């Protein structure tokens, strides 16, 4: 009879970069996943104690409670400006913003565009779930055509409310940006790719190569009014066709990196 080893092998643990608290996020929400990916990357790169995060206004307004680094809390949409102020006076620190679609692509459009235009050496994690979560499900700049929200009850009418704004595509045109990619959090394979992208974004900053951004297609089962599983399906079936995944701009130096 073969003997079974009794030594436990730890295959999964909480990254040091995540605090040991329960989050306020809804069941099925992907914020928890993106938080974890950031924490793992900062741990692996040994950057946690050098990092200053900038939280947005939106569901992730309390990101600073969950991510175990120094953090500041910005006004709605102004995270890239605040990050600019921090990075310019503390270039030795790693500075990143964590922003939702309303924050980044609506009220904060000027700030994100100019941060990229200046080639600001910061990293942006952009959570795109096509809706305003915290205020209860209103239309976002990234809401899909025909998608129902509390402020587009009959579905987003492009005649009246225009079209979803594709931030990664736009930001890739800015000369100051070095790494602009879109990934998704809707299944494990895509999550692994998302983590690699986050790693490359921070690697861009570490190398002083300017603006980096990872757009993460995310879910909001509560405000989409679907189950968590259906929400993941919705990303695959409805969001990816509008917001295609891919690398929109990758500096050759970063493309060479194996992570």
């Amino acid at each position, binding site marked *: 009879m073969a003997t079974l080893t009794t030594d436990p092998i730890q295959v999964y643990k909480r990254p040091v970069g995540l605090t040991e608290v329960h989050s306020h996020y809804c069941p099925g929400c992907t914020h928890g996943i993106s938080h974890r990916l950031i924490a793992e990357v900062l741990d692996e790169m040994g950057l*946690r104690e050098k990092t200053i995060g900038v939280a947005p206004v939106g569901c992730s307004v309390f990101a600073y409670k969950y991510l175990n680094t*120094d*953090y500041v*809390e910005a006004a709605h949409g102004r995270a890239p400006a605040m990050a600019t102020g921090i990075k310019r006076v503390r270039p030795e620190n790693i500075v990143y913003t964590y922003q939702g679609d309303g924050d980044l692509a609506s009220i904060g459009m000027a700030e994100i*565009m100019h941060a990229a235009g200046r080639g600001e050496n910061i990293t942006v994690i952009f959570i795109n779930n096509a809706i305003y979560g915290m205020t209860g499900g209103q239309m976002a700049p990234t809401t899909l055509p025909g998608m129902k929200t509390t402020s587009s009850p009959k579905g987003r009418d492009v005649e009246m409310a225009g079209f979803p704004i594709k931030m990664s595509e736009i930001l890739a045109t800015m000369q100051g940006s070095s790494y602009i990619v879109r990934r998704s959090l809707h299944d494990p394979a895509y999550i692994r790719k998302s983590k690699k992208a986050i790693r490359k974004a921070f690697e861009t900053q570490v190398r002083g190569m300017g603006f980096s951004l990872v757009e993460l297609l995310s879910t909001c089962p509560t405000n989409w009014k679907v189950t968590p599983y259906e929400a993941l399906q919705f990303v695959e079936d409805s969001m990816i066709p509008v917001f295609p995944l891919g690398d929109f701009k990758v500096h050759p130096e970063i493309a060479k990196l194996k992570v």
Partner: protein
Amino acid sequence: MTKKLLKGNHALAEAAVRAGCEGFFGYPITPSTEFLEYMSSRMPELGRAFVQAESEVAAINMVYGAACAGKRTMTASSSPGVSLMMEGLSYIAGTEVPAVLVNVMRGGPGLGNIAPSQGDYNQMVKGGGHGDYFPIVIAPASVQESIDYTMLAFDLADKYRTLVYVIVDGNIGQMMEPAEMPPMREIPTEAPDWAVTGAEGRDPIALSSIYIDPYDEEVTNLRLLKKKLEIEKNEVIFKEFFMEDAEIVIIGFGTAGRISLSAVREAREQGIKVGLIRPITLFPFPFERIAEAAEQAKSFLVVEMNTGMMLDDIQVAVKGKIPVEFYGRLGGVTPFPDEILSEINRINENPPTDPNLDARADWVKRLEKAIEGSN
């Protein structure tokens, strides 16, 4: 040190540099633009941060970030630009981090014009942004004072972890006067213990103006209020001239105050017993001194380049003890000393007796007549 002929905006900017400002973030706007231009060469030359932001909204949020990072930081703008900054200023106040704003005021409301004005008194002194907070407001009246009080502004901002506004009008921003610059201060090597610097070997720090539980926000509001009371106790600054035997007392801040001084000197030569109080801190306001002066004087004349915003505060201090008269010019018009002198003469010849006179209504009639006359 010798005096040099310096332009107000340049002097304000260099004073900020010498006070140890490590991050300047701004957006061009007349009549403060020379401030930004000066910083665009001066800051990089010293290895300090300078960004011409995409808007005043972004500029003040860059200041917010740099302030959270524990560095002395500031912006400079003019009235419409300051309106855009109100959001960020409120957040800075709520987060209790130190920052300095220089407002070179111009005529408004709206786009208004670019001429010197004091029309932002209420916006600056009474808050302006949302929520309960109390920035320190300092109103220099000369290029030298602009230098001295900009230095002080950074010290007070750090001492109380608060916003400090230095407000001048376009006259002071644009004029040249001989002034002496203090020596360059050394930049502290250690960050303050509340600042975000990366959580190396310590627990993370989170800086925020969010207090989602109203009871927590109440405690914060109370803390801000106690800070206010402390500032009121310690930091009042004003200057006074010819007050020993003054029966008529002029009160004006900034440009209106210094122009009044010319009129007061001439009136003194005519033998009129007139004095001047020039408040320098508008918050904390010299209520005590004004109240004291109301015991001594027979009447007050408040002179401003607005519709009588400080007048309201003077009346609070006077408590109806003596008549308070008002003279203001509006919309970017700077009064000449002659106008104030004729007000002094008018009061001297027909001293007001009614402590409840409606200063503003009486002045409106006089100003309307004057405007008609000049057309």
